[in-house]
């Protein structure tokens, strides 16, 4: 049976009681997933988070996520963290040239600004670059 490879961008939230445990170390050793950390904040005895892109075999990914879950880590997909208020957005396009991962583009015909949150790495640059302040970061 051919293995399916998956790649997901997730945010791992570590409650303060988990921060002091070697969760990441176990995760790396036991599940053979490659990952790319984009942003992290882990301080002893405080709540912490790691934003990363995980890729590898589907079964191992599922097992790894399940391990993290059992260890008390809350897992969230990236794309839910940066949101656009469609009411605030005026469809100007100031974000289009600015987003480092090209998560925004202008639709060719209607020239509407499209936000593809699958490409978003939650860097937060658009939050203050957006003149209408339509972008919100939520954790």
């Amino acid at each position, binding site marked *: 049976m051919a293995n399916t490879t998956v790649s997901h961008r997730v945010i791992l939230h570590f409650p303060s009681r988990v921060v002091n445990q070697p969760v990441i170390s176990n995760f790396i050793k036991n599940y053979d997933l490659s990952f790319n950390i984009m942003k992290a904040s882990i301080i002893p005895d405080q709540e912490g988070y790691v934003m990363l892109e995980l890729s590898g075999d589907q079964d191992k990914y599922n097992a790894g996520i399940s391990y993290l879950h059992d260890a008390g880590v809350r897992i969230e997909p990236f794309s839910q963290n940066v949101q656009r208020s469609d009411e605030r957005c005026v469809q100007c396009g100031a*974000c289009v040239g600015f987003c480092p991962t090209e998560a925004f583009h202008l639709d060719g015909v209607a*020239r509407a*600004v499209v936000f593809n949150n699958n490409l978003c790495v939650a860097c937060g640059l658009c939050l203050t670059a957006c003149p209408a302040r339509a972008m919100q970061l939520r954790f």
Partner: protein
Amino acid sequence: MPKTIAEINERIKRGQAVVATADEIIDLAREKGIARTAAEVDVVTTGTFGPMCSSGAYINTGHSQSRIKMGGGQAFLNDVPAYTGFAAVDLFIGANALPDADPRNRVHPGEFNYGGGHVIEELVAGKDVRLVAHAYGTDCYPRRELDTLVSINDLNEAVLFNIRNAYQNYNVAVNASSKTIYTYMGILKPNLGNATYCSAGQLSPLLNDPFYNTVGIGTRIFLGGGTGYVTWQGTQFNPDVPRTANGVPRRGAGTIAVIGDLKQMSSRYLRGISMLGYGVTMAVGIGLPIPILSEEILAYTLVTDADILAPVVDYAGAYPNRSSEVLAEVSYAELKSGQIKVRGATIPAASLSSYQRAVEIAQTLKKWIERSEFFLTERVAPLPGVESGMSLKPLTERR
């Protein structure tokens, strides 16, 4: 052919007026030819929606019991200072005004999350706004302090009065320095890392009437979701700029001053805007109807993005130093493709004005005219033309 505005209004009244947006008219004329299109079409509608800094509103709050004379004192709307140099309860709030407590650029780049433009947006949306005033007290206006909520419905008058809007063409901003800069044209990355522009191009009001043949004082327009009027040429009005063979200005040129009842406008088309490291302003929606009185007037409305050239200006050097240096000229067709070429480099280009909402405004104005809800006005006086000799003066400092 030729038609008069009275004849067009008669057709609007009967529900028979033929209206096209400045986008639609291009294909229509290509298909039917200029003579037939000019005979058939009565009005071309334009639209623009972008940050327009010289915007503001005056309000009359009504008199408190006992009376207060805010004139000569201080007044704040949601902590944003309003101008009090008028009579007792007349205030003017400018789009760029900032709360005294805003840190501005003390930590650069400042965020400028709230200011006069946002106050106007909230008033238009019908929200309560806190009015605080300090006065010196007189025998006839004894009150010295005021702190109350007001909404637009409480006010006697709430009038949008913008002294410079709808710039006819505008700079394309880039940054030739080695550091990121924060400007009214947005964030500009170093070494020509990106470009920003701010015009609706072929849909923009004054680019469709480049010599001000129809627009003038008294022209009724779409303003902020309601109706308004052109009151005067806008400040910095400058018809004396280089133009292309078909008359289109290649630099910022004409502008209009506009007025309208804020009470019938909508926060969809009046929006507080924050420019990182620069300040606050307000995005304003304007739609100008152009009566097709002759083939010549129609021909000007056929301008396309490819015909309109804008100057690329370095906002790290030439602009702050008031140098007239232009790095290149690019067309709106290139700008809207998302990339421009400047000195051999390909630069991503982004817009600060919303084309999508400009289209929406031109379409809305078209619908109003087709439904006999909006009639054209005869202008009372024209705007100064190229022949006026009017030009833009710099400030020469002297002692």
